[in-house]
């Protein structure tokens, strides 16, 4: 290690110290991390619920005249949500529709959840379509009704096929929550901005970037494990 490397290292430590330790600034990052995780987790749950419901309705609406209007509603939902930017949706939720809610967190969760639902619905629909029609016919001929066939035969196979795409969506959602600052949410990104505003130095933004990266790498790892676990069934046959 020569002197220059050492001084460079000291420089970085100095900057990290200013960005994180001076005035307990790391607490801003912790609060931000908490809110980012809350948004991501609950929006994922809402998004998955909406996605499954919408995808199933769309699937059944194909062959059922009575359900056709409901199918149109679902089509409209995915078209509008996927066709408009999430920031604009969030601002509309906050300033026009959900004006009765005081806290920013529930608004963000609702906004991101409903946004994610549209993408999840399309992924699941693709998953259902990927399962051979013979599977449904087999289930029906064994005396299961439509819902049972969907739940017990089609869905388990579909989920395995779409897991990588779903993982992608969840990762995208986690990163998308970084725009919640538009409605005055104190999320991870906002924490980085706040520290940057106090220190006029962007080091905190790197810290924030690394935290996002670690979260995403962790999620990838977990979903990879799940994927491998689900594949075990294939090998047995």
């Amino acid at each position, binding site marked *: 290690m020569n002197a220059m490397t050492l001084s*460079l290292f000291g*420089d970085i430590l100095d900057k990290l110290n200013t960005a994180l330790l001076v005035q307990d600034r790391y607490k801003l990052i912790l609060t931000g991390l908490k809110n980012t995780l809350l948004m991501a987790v609950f929006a994922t749950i809402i998004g998955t619920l909406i996605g499954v419901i919408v995808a199933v309705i769309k699937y059944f609406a194909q062959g059922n005249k009575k359900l056709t209007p409901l199918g149109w509603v679902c089509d409209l939902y995915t078209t509008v949500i996927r066709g408009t930017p999430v920031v604009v949706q969030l601002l509309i939720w906050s300033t026009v529709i959900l004006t009765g809610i005081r806290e920013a967190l529930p608004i963000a969760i609702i906004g991101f959840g409903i946004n994610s639902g549209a993408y999840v619905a399309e992924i699941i629909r693709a998953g259902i379509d990927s399962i051979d029609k013979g599977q449904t016919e087999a289930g029906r001929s064994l005396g299961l009704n439509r819902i049972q066939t969907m739940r017990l035969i089609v869905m388990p196979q579909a989920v395995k096929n779409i897991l990588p795409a779903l993982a992608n969506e969840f990762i995208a959602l986690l990163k998308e929550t970084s725009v919640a*600052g538009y409605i*005055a949410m104190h999320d991870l990104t906002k924490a980085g901005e706040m520290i940057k505003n106090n220190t*006029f130095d962007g080091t905190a933004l790197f810290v924030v970037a690394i935290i996002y990266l*670690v979260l995403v790498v962790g999620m990838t790892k977990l979903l990879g494990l799940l994927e491998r676990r689900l594949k075990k069934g294939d090998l047995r046959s």
Partner: protein
Amino acid sequence: MKKILAVLLAVSMTAVFGACSSGGGATSSETSEPASSEAAPESSEAEAPESSEASSEESEAPADTGNMPTVEKIKEKGELVMLTNAAFPPFEYVDGSEITGVDVEIAQAIADELGVKLSVTNMDFDPIIDYIKTGKGDLGIAGITANEEREKAVDFSTSYITTTQYMILPTGVDGATFDPNGKIIGVQQGTTGDNYYASDPEVMQPKEVKRYKSAVDAAADMALGRVDCVIIDEMPAKAIVANNPDKMQAYDPGYDKESYSIAMMKGNDSLKQVVDSVLQKLADEGKIEEMIVKHTSNQ
């Protein structure tokens, strides 16, 4: 293992970028010189309590004249780039499709003096100082309060207006008895009202500080009951209230005076001379007062 590798990669990335920015980014404060001597006395008075350790350890690299927008370079370009946040009436706001206001007129006067055309960049308020520091714009004119922290990053012109922080409160709330402690305070992110009032525990301990992209957004959320009070500069506060007189009121809590200055890159003395002389001329002719009256009534 892969995870560890990824983290290592990220750290090394940070190191590389950090090295670049500390080498090339022009942070040239000659540590002993208090930047812009005329602005200093007024602004130091405006300083709310603030611990000075914050960025004092920042490394000082020599001025990078490579991207410094000197007078010569601006004339060569034929364009003066002004960075502002056009949600701060009467200093800068959008009128129809045009950005106008007191600051824009001042910038126009500076551009006229230089014989170039003015280009206005409308952006978020909080990164403006950073952008000026790194030469992504020529002048930061956005009702920027000159204070010690910011003077470490950029040079300031002489001040062109003296103002103070106001509270915007819902109608029916008595300002004299309003206590911000334990309340939800709305601010514009990165402004004086944010950094030196709402976010400074020595000044107040609110329950929560909500940081918005503009004071207008903050006031709109106050009207919805999401914040109890908005802290923002006097004149924008009055302008915002004037648009919603039945819902909100402006209150002067008697905070310290502070003054607005124009931000430019550290060591850009040729530009500072021009800016200061134009400001002096406008002040002598009473033009700045005129502009304020005009843009306040324009709202």
